[in-house]
């Protein structure tokens, strides 16, 4: 019975954050761009989320006749399923985790690599040249950034001596891992932006060139699933950064641990949105060059040095 409550709690938190982010992002962007943003529906315009959701539900859910129908319908579901599954291994607080797996980090990496299919198949099944180009860019980009996304986490794994998120948080009681693993944190953060294909790395859906990239043909709630999936992805990556590098639920004891986890997660979500407001989109080859020529050697070097120091200290 306890598990039912935990699962319901995790789902409720994740989905309400993801939906609320639509409003948060628009308001924050407006603050940084010196305008007001949505402020008409309800207090501070917070009802905008409800209005948008109702609008999405009532839109015609059109499947193009030239598309590959089963794959077209399947694609948005893969995205939601892989991201929501990963929330199962993230500890929201002490004893507030659905499944404390001893391969937690690998579970996250596996799910994120399966998430690529959603975009690739969505773009291919749309049978539209812009979608296909978006899907190809997405697969190359995400495959590249996955390589050192995993490598950048191995320093943390070595220091905590475990793949389990829960044990990694407990190992950070002395010092948060972003101090000894600063390089790993930077590499993981950049790879996280590329994995969720957020601005500035939103090359798969670059609206100036590709209409809307891989989801050009999607409408109604199928589009809504891609849309919410993107925000869920941001929440997930922020939560993982908070867990692995910033001590998860650890914090001064005048507030409950769950609050500290949510506070850190929300901070990184805001950083994601600030990046969107401030950085231009790089060219496609620049993105690949950054990945293979700078970030991959950097994460390998970080792995080597961390290992050497740990052996030296033993």
């Amino acid at each position: 019975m306890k598990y039912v409550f935990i699962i319901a709690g995790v789902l409720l938190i994740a989905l309400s954050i993801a939906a609320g982010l639509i409003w948060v992002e628009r308001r924050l962007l407006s603050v940084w761009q010196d305008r007001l943003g949505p402020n008409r529906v309800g207090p501070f315009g917070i009802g905008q989320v409800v209005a948008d959701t109702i609008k999405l539900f009532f839109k015609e859910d059109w499947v193009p006749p030239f598309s590959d129908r089963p794959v077209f319908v399947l694609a948005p579901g893969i995205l939601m399923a892989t991201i929501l599954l990963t929330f199962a291994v993230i500890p929201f607080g002490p004893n507030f985790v659905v499944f404390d797996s001893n391969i937690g980090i690998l579970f996250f990496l596996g799910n994120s690599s399966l998430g690529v299919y959603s975009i690739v198949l969505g773009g291919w099944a749309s049978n539209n040249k812009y979608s296909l180009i978006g899907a190809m860019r997405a697969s190359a980009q995400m495959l590249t950034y996955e390589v050192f996304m995993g490598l950048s986490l191995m320093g943390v794994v070595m220091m905590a001596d475990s793949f389990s998120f829960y044990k990694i948080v407990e190992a950070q009681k002395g010092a948060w891992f972003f101090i000894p693993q600063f390089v790993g944190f930077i590499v993981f953060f950049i790879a996280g932006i590329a994995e969720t294909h957020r601005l500035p790395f939103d090359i798969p859906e670059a609206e100036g060139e590709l209409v809307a990239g891989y989801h050009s043909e999607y409408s109604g709630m199928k589009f809504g699933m891609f849309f919410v999936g993107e925000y869920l992805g941001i929440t997930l990556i922020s939560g993982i950064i908070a867990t692995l590098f910033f001590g998860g639920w650890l914090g001064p004891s005048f507030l409950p641990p769950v609050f500290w986890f949510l506070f850190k997660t929300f901070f990184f979500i805001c950083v994601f949105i600030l990046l969107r407001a401030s950085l231009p989109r790089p060219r496609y080859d620049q993105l690949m060059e950054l990945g293979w020529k700078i970030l991959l050697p950097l994460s390998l070097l970080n792995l080597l040095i961390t290992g050497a120091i740990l052996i030296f200290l033993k």
Partner: protein
Amino acid sequence: MNVFFYIAAIVAIVSTIMAISGKNAIHSLLYLILSLLAVSVIFYLLSAPFIAALEVIIYAGAIMVLFIFVTMMLNIGLERESENKWLKPRMWIVPSILAVILLVTLIMSLKNVAPVSPDKEAILPKQVGISLFSTYLLGVEIAAILLMAGVIGAYHLGSQKKKVIHRFLKTN
């Protein structure tokens, strides 16, 4: 545990058959991915969670994405004339009979081997790493040399200078 094993095994077999017999290349690849996921579940049930995770990350996550990528680039999703010709019974019936003979011999020889118990203690990543870098060090080194050869080959192929320059980039 046994029930889950049989479910995963049936999913693996059915999806593999669908992958072989399908005519749409992308659909076949999707069935192949499903089959790899089912094999990963079997590994997990046999108390090898590390291998199960690697199966998903490397095979289902990385290699199959490359397959789909190439299939998309070449646009061979549609049914082809040659495929129909290859799927005639004349083409596959003899190999199938030979494969069935092999399967029968395999089953006969496996009859005396004790089955692996799925309920033993899980083998954690640490144990896998220790045995890889002590008992099987030679194998790891050989794999590393092979991968290095691949990297050097890719570098050689990719290092050729671009001969055609886009008209916007010409300086004269």
